[in-house]
């Protein structure tokens, strides 16, 4: 009896899952997240270590040719574990897998040397398919070349940002799974079958106490707003029940000055009591902070 229910609920669906072809969204998520998010051997302290960097690339790092619009390069420094879709190409789905190996040469990527991946398109029987291209093998781009030819602000710490989403438990309030009802209009379209290939964890969320975030950056792409909102949601949304995430700023601000949280909270309390006309200024975050990575993830991935 248990065997029967196991085959129906585990074995049969596994055929459907294996045949799911990865979409662009799925490739983007998997390549930008790295092998797994959450506790793992490459990230034992769950700080977002061992994750790739997503680079917004507006020119070819080798030839200098301009890209318009800019493309995304997923930079794996030497030693960074590859995404699940590269490690196990079966995760890509049959067609995308064969394209990614024959044209994309992902089987030639070496973890010890690092690699740069991009998402390219190919025509199969009149249909356009996105596949993974190992640009290190096909175009000779190295991780350091790509990083050095671009500005810091073009580096998006997406994998690290999603790690923050997981460890800080945002998913206990927010979901990443718009439903079929009103969500089409308000929170955007529900994910397609191939949107999750290689993603771990999916963190759909089950208890929605707050807006769905899957497409939040399409509604609101202001870094400034995000910054204020995370420091203290009630600065921009007085009735919010979202917790303050000011501790993600770390100890110092962008200029290296220590952040005086006690003073900030005191002044904010005064503002709430009407003793001050304006709330205190929210400190600018430093580039290597968790809040930077979190906002990078939101604005890059949750479109």
């Amino acid at each position: 009896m248990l065997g029967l229910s196991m085959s129906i609920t585990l074995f049969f669906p596994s055929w459907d899952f294996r045949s799911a072809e990865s979409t662009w969204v799925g490739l983007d998520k998997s390549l930008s997240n790295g092998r797994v998010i959450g506790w793992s051997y490459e990230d034992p302290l769950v700080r977002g270590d061992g994750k790739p960097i997503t680079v917004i690339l507006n020119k070819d790092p080798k030839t200098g040719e301009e890209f318009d619009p800019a493309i995304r390069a997923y930079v794996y420094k030497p030693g960074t574990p590859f995404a699940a879709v590269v490690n196990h190409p079966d995760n890509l789905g049959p067609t995308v897998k064969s394209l990614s190996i024959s044209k994309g040469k992902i089987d030639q990527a070496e973890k010890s040397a690092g690699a740069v991946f991009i998402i390219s398109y190919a025509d199969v029987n009149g249909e356009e398919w996105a596949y993974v291209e190992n640009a290190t093998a096909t175009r000779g781009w190295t991780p350091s070349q790509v990083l050095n030819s671009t500005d810091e602000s073009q580096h998006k710490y997406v994998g690290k940002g999603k790690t923050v989403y997981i460890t800080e438990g945002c998913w206990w309030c927010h979901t990443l799974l718009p439903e079929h009802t009103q969500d089409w209009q308000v929170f955007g379209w529900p994910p397609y079958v191939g949107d999750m290939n290689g993603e771990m964890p999916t963190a759909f969320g089950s208890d929605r106490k707050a807006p769905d975030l899957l497409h939040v950056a399409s509604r609101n792409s202001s870094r400034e707003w995000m910054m204020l909102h995370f420091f203290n949601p009630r600065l921009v949304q007085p009735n919010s029940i979202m917790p303050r995430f000011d501790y993600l700023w770390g100890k110092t601000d962008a200029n290296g000055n220590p952040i005086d949280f006690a003073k900030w909270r005191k002044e904010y309390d005064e503002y709430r009591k009407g003793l001050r006309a304006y709330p205190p200024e929210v400190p600018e975050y430093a580039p290597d902070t968790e809040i930077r990575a979190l906002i990078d993830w939101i604005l890059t991935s949750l479109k």
Partner: protein
Amino acid sequence: MLLKYLFAKNEDIPPGTATIFFGYSSIFWFVIGTGIGSFNAAKLAFPDFVTGTELFAFGHMRQVHVLAVILGWISMAFAMTMMYMTPALGNTKLWSEKLGLWTAMNWNIGLSLGLFLLWMGFTSGREYSDLIWPIDLVVIFGVLLPLGINVWMTIAHRRTQGIYITNWFFGACIFFVIVVFVVGQSAELFNLTGLTEGYLTFWFAHNVLGLWITPVAAAIAYYTIPKLTGNPLYSHRIGHLHFWAIIAFYSTPASHHLLAAPLPEWLKSFASVEGVLILIPAVAFVANILLTMKGRWSMFVENVEIKFSVTGVLLAIPLNMQGGFQQTRAINWYVHGTGWIVAHAHLALLGMSSFLEIAAVYFGLQQMLRRKLYSLALANFHYWFVIIGFCIYWISMTIAGLIQGAGKIYEVPYIDVVIAEHPYMIARWVGGTMVFTGNLVWLYNMYMTAVEGTVVPKGRYAHELAYER
């Protein structure tokens, strides 16, 4: 005091030692779990309550509450009942008290470690499977497997001819929960990703409820109600129907938790149909127990253990009526992901399941300590605080859920839903705090029972003696 037996010879350990260890541990974790629950609820009502520290942030505490009550309170209470019911029903002794003690020991250490790490942010990011996989391995090999071996061997060494329904459930459910754990956590162990991972997460979440928390709680009622009332179980055959129907229908509807995800449509439809069929075991169970009460309904008022047990069984009625239908597509789109589901989950775990276990822990501890419960008044206080607190919680969250559902379909800006929910969030916190308070009193009452309860004479049951307080 009990720990001195950890290295004693098995024969020298007095029967019941493992029961007592598990019993007190479970109450302790109940207090911790509901305490954190009440703290979390306060944060949802008043977001600036304890703010600015990472460790006391909502996102760090929420999963600790859930796993403390599931793995600490409920599962340890299960182990506790298995330690005394299985031998009693087989007319024999527990196969190994020593193994039982060690299981309890591993359990407390492993869970403390797991919850501590979780609290610090070491998580797999998968709901209900949040513990990182090394801890999952501790749970499987250090806790569930030894527990299973003890129960299976005790059943094998029974000195009765048949196996009573309770032991059917105990033996089978431990096997199931091990399978469920192994399959559910395989996503982390073998890096299974994407939809497979999402599905396995909810496959685990569903089956750990369906093949562990609900059926074992029911199995406990099959023991406590006949034992305390003195009535034989109304029908062993209906019990069997319950057992087999659980395996057939409760093990399959996992994907009804993910109706909004792009899972195969056939799987979702299959799950919804099977989900309605869960009403078969549910009705069989409730009817069987309520019919067993025949002629002894006065005990519902007079006897604390029966009061808790029967309340649990009665709560199974709304639980299953909600459960059977809210997972169909026709209804699910309205309530999915809202407070309604939170209310339902608490109806299952804090309502139905916990009430049955509380009764069994009261009964078993008195039996094994050979001491009468210290105070009836405190026990009644416990009952009323937990039931009233639970009802406040349940009703307020149900209303909050309906508001969220309405907000969904009428495309209300989300912030207005948050504002509308605020009073119910406060009510939720009040209810949760009452449950916590009741449990604190229970812990005190049980402690006093161990040190000052009247000694129960040989050959008598604790519930046959009169209360002194």
